[in-house]
């Protein structure tokens, strides 16, 4: 309800119900809350806009095809982000390939198969807690397990070790997203499936998963968007900051050392020369474009699957 423009004339009614005498005060409170909410919105948007403008003003002039196709260099004007960009893409694809099947599988098990026991509840709470563990902790775990103990497989500080670490980091998010999507499917569909003599897997694979897949994909891509910006765990496992070659397109490629966009940006920002700071700004733009592309993919995929229904 918006307040009337002028003070409304008192309605003289014969009924028992008299209009509240402090109606004007109630309108005022209404208005105050509306303004407070508006201010909150503006603060959020303005901060974001200032950040973006600052980055774009700094970085945009530096952005060129050369910047994308050059390797990092000691000379700021020649330095590019080819190897971090390619490294990020390798890292993300490998992370997705590891985390998606495991996360979705665990989510399906916990939601559809596991009995509602105390053990299941403990696992559930722990997974929710894992999602809140600081990423540096995952980095330390990755350093010990994937870089040191699994060295024969990962060959140390490689793409594979990095991807395994990031996969661990986003697993809880994917599991939770999968469970939420499954839970949103009405139980009547499951019952209808079972009543036709279908087994649990037949019901899940043919009736439930197709409906849950848009939600699962959205959750996964949002989780990957988190992974793409993670710097701390990669630094913890000792990802390099200067790489002047690309991973070979073969199985050995997974075992090559790598660098990634956030690491390169972090490295450039911490240099004393101002020119490198410009490079960092340009790198941030590239990172944000990649992120935007991923989120767009999530939305397109979701709409596509929803239409297919």
């Amino acid at each position: 309800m918006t307040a009337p423009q002028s003070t409304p004339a008192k309605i003289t009614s014969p009924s028992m119900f008299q209009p509240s005498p402090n109606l004007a005060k109630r309108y005022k409170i209404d208005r105050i809350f509306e303004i407070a909410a508006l201010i909150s919105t503006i603060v959020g948007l303005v901060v974001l806009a200032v950040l973006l403008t600052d980055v774009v003003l700094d970085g945009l002039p530096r952005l060129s095809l050369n910047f994308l196709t050059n390797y990092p260099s000691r000379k700021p004007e020649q330095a590019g982000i080819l190897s971090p960009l390619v490294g990020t893409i390798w890292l993300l694809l490998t992370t997705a390939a590891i985390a998606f099947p495991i996360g979705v599988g665990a989510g399906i098990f916990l939601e559809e198969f596991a009995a509602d026991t105390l053990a299941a509840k403990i696992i559930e709470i722990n997974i929710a807690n894992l999602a809140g563990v600081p990423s540096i902790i995952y980095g330390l775990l990755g350093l010990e397990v994937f870089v040191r103990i699994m060295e024969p497989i990962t060959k140390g500080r490689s793409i594979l070790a990095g991807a395994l670490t990031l996969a661990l980091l986003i697993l809880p998010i994917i599991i939770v997203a999968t469970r939420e999507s499954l839970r949103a499917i009405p139980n009547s569909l499951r019952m209808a499936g079972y009543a036709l003599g279908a087994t649990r897997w037949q019901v899940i694979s043919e009736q439930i998963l197709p409906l849950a897949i848009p939600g699962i994909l959205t959750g996964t891509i949002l989780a990957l968007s988190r992974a793409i910006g993670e710097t701390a765990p990669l630094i913890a496992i000792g990802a390099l900051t200067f790489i002047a070659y690309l991973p070979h397109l073969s199985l050995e490629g997974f075992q090559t050392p790598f660098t990634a966009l956030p690491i390169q940006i972090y490295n450039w920002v911490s240099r004393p020369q101002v020119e490198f700071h410009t490079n960092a700004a340009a790198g941030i733009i590239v990172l944000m474009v990649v992120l935007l592309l991923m989120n767009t993919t999530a939305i397109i995929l979701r709409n596509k699957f929803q239409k297919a229904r």
Partner: protein
Amino acid sequence: MISVDLAKHMTSASNGQKEIILKTENVSVYYGNFLAVRGVYLDIPKNKIVAFIGPSGCGKSTLLRTFNRLNDLIPGCRVEGRITFHKQDIYDKKIDPIDICRRIGMVFQKPTPFPKSIYENIAFGARVNGYRGNMDELVEQSLRQAALWDEVKDKLKQSGLALSGGQQQRLCIARAIAIQPEVILMDEPCSALDPISTLKIEELLDELKEKYTIIIVTHNMQQASRIADMTAFFNAEATEMGGKMGYLVEYDETQEIFHNPKEKSTQDYVSGRFG
């Protein structure tokens, strides 16, 4: 006292030469420690429509779901007593619950078409049960039996959700028929439908009973009196724990239940004095 009366009604009910397809002997259903339905004796004759009537919370639907073991999926639900299907105990360890679901189909209160094409809705049940024959033929035959073919034959590829409520429910019936069950359980199949769709389904049930045995739970007493050959009246009594426990009051030919009931509570219920 009730069980004595029951025994009397049962003999009058099962006097005919009809073959008994489903039989419950002293069946009680528990949710955890809570007794929901107590000691039910029922004989379901083959190729008849049997209606379960009674006030809310009297365990009609709970009992219905014990017949295809769908209650197995509800945590804490336990069935005591014996339910035999063709003289075989369906809760025997050797019996595969999935096979029971195949032979005893079910239609739910709310139409639950799968969010897939009309064709796929019917093909799913057949496919998961390993049907090898001509699928197109099966789909057409099932839809014809459910009196839906003429309305949907040109849009088999459209989503089942695009149909009206009554059509959706007939699609669910077609889907249940497609796996060629012997018994079809119906849990208030018309309660979400308008009178015209209801009438269509009632006409359909009358045709279907030539091939199938139908057990239908309904809140609509006119419906029971119109379509059912046999009617079972259930009632509920409050328990000390504040819940409701259901029990079978009277089971007889529908005519008898509605015009010449032996129990006073049946008389009160069918004449609309409570419930």
